């Protein structure tokens, strides 16, 4: 169960801000103009199950705020609200509430602009703040740490992202490393994720005048490795692992807003035998310029 919820957290924490027509599940390097404020609301719905019939479902609603300081530096804040539920036979355990807030900065280090095309590279770095509850309990006692809405620890993360966008298509790639802190003797396993996204414009078939809305089809690949959780320095055998996800989706992009949705398939799950396995998950969101 722990591994399953930890894997859920992997999925949740991979939701770094993406505030443009761009990838669904990670950050792009596309510009955020000065004085343009952006808010993104993402919902994710996921579930896991094991052979014993235990099932975990989780819903995460994450609000992302983006603010540009100048043409090179942008700041982002991610505020998640989570609902997690574990069902084992007649037993149900759940937690609800604010999760751990993430703040990070993005520094653009390379720009190559052409007519109708841009290529950019950026570095990201930030921190996860332990704003979520990590000591919740119920009639059965303390709720296991992976089922809590927060981790209790300060974590740091950093990475690099590259984007190549033209009128017809976009490629994004990102490498992200998340280093997990320890709280009350417990630490979740640190992670490394390599993400790639391809977006293809299906509509309009040819560009007309003005600024038409675009309909993109999206296909993303997330490759995630996680070290084992530790409690008091001892690795927990049923945690950690390697995950490959495929995320097909669609995105409708206008000048003022973006609406998007995707389905997350875990195509490879190399996790401990007793751990729960991903079921299909769903993600949807809206981003607004103002």
């Amino acid at each position, binding site marked *: 169960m722990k591994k399953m919820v930890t894997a859920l957290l992997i999925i949740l924490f991979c939701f770094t801000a993406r505030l443009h*027509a761009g990838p669904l599940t990670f950050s792009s390097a596309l*510009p955020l103009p000065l004085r343009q404020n952006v808010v993104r609301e993402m919902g994710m719905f996921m579930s896991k199950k094991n052979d014993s019939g235990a099932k975990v479902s989780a819903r995460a609603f994450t609000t992302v705020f983006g603010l540009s300081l100048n043409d090179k530096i942008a700041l982002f804040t991610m505020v998640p609200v989570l609902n997690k539920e574990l069902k084992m036979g007649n037993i149900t355990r759940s937690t609800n509430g604010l999760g751990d807030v993430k703040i990070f900065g993005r520094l653009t280090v390379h720009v190559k602009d052409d*007519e109708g095309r841009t290529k950019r590279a950026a570095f990201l770095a930030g921190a996860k703040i332990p704003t979520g509850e990590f000591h919740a309990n119920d009639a059965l006692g303390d709720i296991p740490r992976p089922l809590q809405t927060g981790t209790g620890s300060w974590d740091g993360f950093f990475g690099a992202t590259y984007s190549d966008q033209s009128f017809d298509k976009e490629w994004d790639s990102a490498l992200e490393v998340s280093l997990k802190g320890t709280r009350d003797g417990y630490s979740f396993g640190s992670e490394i994720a390599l993400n790639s996204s391809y977006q293809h414009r299906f509509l309009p078939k040819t*560009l007309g005048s003005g600024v038409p809305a675009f309909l993109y089809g999206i296909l993303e690949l997330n490759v995630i490795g996680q070290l084992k959780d530790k409690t008091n320095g001892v690795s927990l055998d049923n945690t950690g692992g390697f995950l490959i996800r495929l995320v097909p989706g669609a995105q409708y992009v206008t*000048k003022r807003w973006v609406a998007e949705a995707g389905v997350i398939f875990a195509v490879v799950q190399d996790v401990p035998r007793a751990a729960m396995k991903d079921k299909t998950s769903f993600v949807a969101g809206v981003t607004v310029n103002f």
Partner: protein
Amino acid sequence: MGLFLFALAMSFLFPWFSDAQIIQAKLVVKGLSCPFCAFGLEKNFKKHGVGKVETELKTGTLKAFQIKKDFEPQTFYKLVRQSGFTLKSLHVQAKGTLSKIQGEWVLMDGDNLLFLLDVDEKFNPSENEVVDVEGNVSQSRPVYGKTHPDYPYTLTVGKMEK
């Protein structure tokens, strides 16, 4: 430097020549490749004194109309850069008073030297005429072997109406 001091002196002598301004502009912007990108660019221009903006994504073109009176040429470059893009070309229509300073044609208003002008003699320019000019804008060409930081932009005149 001499050109700048002369222009400054002119601004005190002829304060009533203050009707110079950029009437409209057409910018070609590099890096503009999706609808969501256009919003920030347009917002920046509207916040800085451009009343109407028309963007065409296919050509990467932004047209600016209803430009406020004291809008300076360098602001076009600054706003595009702040929006995260690159300005490829700038074509403006402007109105002002012709003046000749140390052998160089300039477009003046009462307070500012709006543009250094690259103007062909076929247009028969004459001093103190109020004209409408149209043409491409670029970083100032060297004058007497030096560029002038005080008026960094040159308008190469393609059309002139008196």
